[in-house]
């Protein structure tokens, strides 16, 4: 079976700084992968390369067997990779519904002039779109916030909305950058369930960055550990947890999870 995502010897250099060096990972359809590592290890940089924001200086990103390196950011999205951001980047001034509508951008197609005249077909498509988006919000229990301005929503809801927005692009691979940041233990618990549910409900493969070990150990099939831009270890969560190299990078010598 060919992997959905296969990253080979990915590296990026900012001037004299080798931020990420020969990173690799492999994700099969339906798996949940995790990237962990201390602050500044280059996790978000990896995500930025996986979504085209930073062009890598070395390596390849194979997605469904196609090398995506060199494509524009929206090209990555068109191929089915969606993401959330560590520091939420919603369209703040817009309603939750409009956030989702923009994410459906690639799924709405009508000509420029029919659009100008707002023909009946265009009107019908816009109505359908409204329903599609409302149903996405509903599935993530956000329906009640549809008409609320994104910036006014509670923090947890904003995080959920960002996930909903990423899902609205109908991705095959969903990248979550620290989805549990700023959440309390109960919320993290809830999030673990949500992530598993999203995988099954939306049939997506998930790759997440997280500091929260409990969450990573709970949901991930496969964990990759990075430190100072280098791949430290990889494997099943339980294997990684007891790997002395990993424990040392995180907690220093003699530490214990």
């Amino acid at each position, binding site marked *: 079976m060919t992997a959905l995502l296969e990253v080979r010897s990915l590296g990026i250099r900012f001037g004299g700084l080798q931020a990420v060096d020969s990173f690799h990972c492999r994700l099969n359809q339906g798996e949940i992968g995790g990237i962990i590592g201390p602050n500044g290890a280059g996790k978000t940089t990896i995500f930025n390369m996986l979504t085209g*924001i930073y062009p890598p200086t070395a390596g390849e990103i194979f997605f469904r067997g196609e090398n995506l390196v060199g494509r524009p950011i929206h090209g990555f*999205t068109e191929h089915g990779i969606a*993401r959330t951001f560590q520091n939420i980047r919603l369209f703040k001034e*817009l309603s939750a519904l409009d956030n989702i*509508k923009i*994410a459906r*951008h690639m799924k709405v197609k009508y000509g420029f002039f029919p659009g100008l005249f707002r023909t009946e077909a265009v009107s019908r498509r816009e109505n359908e779109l409204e329903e599609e988006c409302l149903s996405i919000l509903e599935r993530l229990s956000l329906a009640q916030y549809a008409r609320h301005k994104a910036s006014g929503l509670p923090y947890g809801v904003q995080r959920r909305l960002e996930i909903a927005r990423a899902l609205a692009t109908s991705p095959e691979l969903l990248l979550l950058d620290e989805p549990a940041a700023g959440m309390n233990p109960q919320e993290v618990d809830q999030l673990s369930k949500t992530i598993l549910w999203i995988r099954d409900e939306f049939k997506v493969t998930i790759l997440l960055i997280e500091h929260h070990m409990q969450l990573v150990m709970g949901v991930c099939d496969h964990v990759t550990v990075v430190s100072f831009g280098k791949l430290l270890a990889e494997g099943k969560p339980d294997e990684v947890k007891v790997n002395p190299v990993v424990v040392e990078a995180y907690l220093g010598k003699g530490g214990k999870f």
Partner: protein
Amino acid sequence: MKERNANAGIRRYAPMIGVAAAVVVFYLAIEYLRQARVLTPYYVQILMFGLLNCMVTLGLNLINGITGQFSIGQAGFVAVGAYSSAAVTTLLFEFNKLPATLQPLVFLFAVCVGGFAAGVFGYLIGRPSLRVKGDYLAIVTLGFGEIIRSLIRYIEAVGGPRGLPGIPQYAGVRGGGLAWVLFFFTLTVWFLRNYIYSFRGRACVSCREDELAAETMGVNTTTYKVQAFIVGAVTAGAAGALQAHIIGFIHPDQFSYVRSTDFLVYLYAGGVGTMSGAIIGAMSLTIVLEILRFLADWRLIIYGVVLVLMMLYQPNGICSGKEFPFLIPKLKAAAKSSKAGVTGR
């Protein structure tokens, strides 16, 4: 079954027919008042220029308000539209010798040429200059406006620095030009509303809100920034074409950066990001400037004071983010759509 379809059709087009009827009634009312000598041609002409300013400001709103790109060279596009359309009616055709039945067609063609030419310039300018953002883009567009004006001074065929006289006043006040202006104004409002509330318009808004997030949602932000630039230029060009055929004389200095800043002031005073803001701002300030004309040299000082007071007490503009409800397309599911609409501000 057929009957039901017909009914649905009527219901669908009823608002459009209503708007068209309202515009016609408005035109007839003004025409009647003019013939009854209640309104002098001077007032009608102010109204026409107000509508033209609305058109240009609406285009500028798409670029600055909706797409969030700071462009301040709108007068350059107006100039392109004015000169290219005037070239059609004076150089290409001998407009006044054409049979009366052909004149409206040629005039329509001239306005289209004006809009098209401005659109081409919009693309030529937008494509390279949208690589820069904010203040830098403002400087580039300002420079562009001035370059256009300087170039026209060198083109002898359109009068160069002396200006171009003798343009047929086909849209002049006395020739019922208000009808033409109203027609193009209504068309502009309708098209721009449809554009803003289409997926393209939402893509433009996403460029304004967060370009990186927009890209990761699959929006090709360059495409939509350039597109907004072109659409805004076409509107300005059409307005320029009308202007040339109202006064019958155009001069490069009518399209200086002062004119560009006028449009910016209209937009920001009215409320950036909404069509209501562009329309109310352009119309009211055009009229206020005319009312203040009796103050002679004091006029611009008072005008300045008015603007400062507005910044103090109504910083988000007269309309401050509220869109005219009829400018938000109705969706079936959207029974209680928010007042702000997609533009959000």
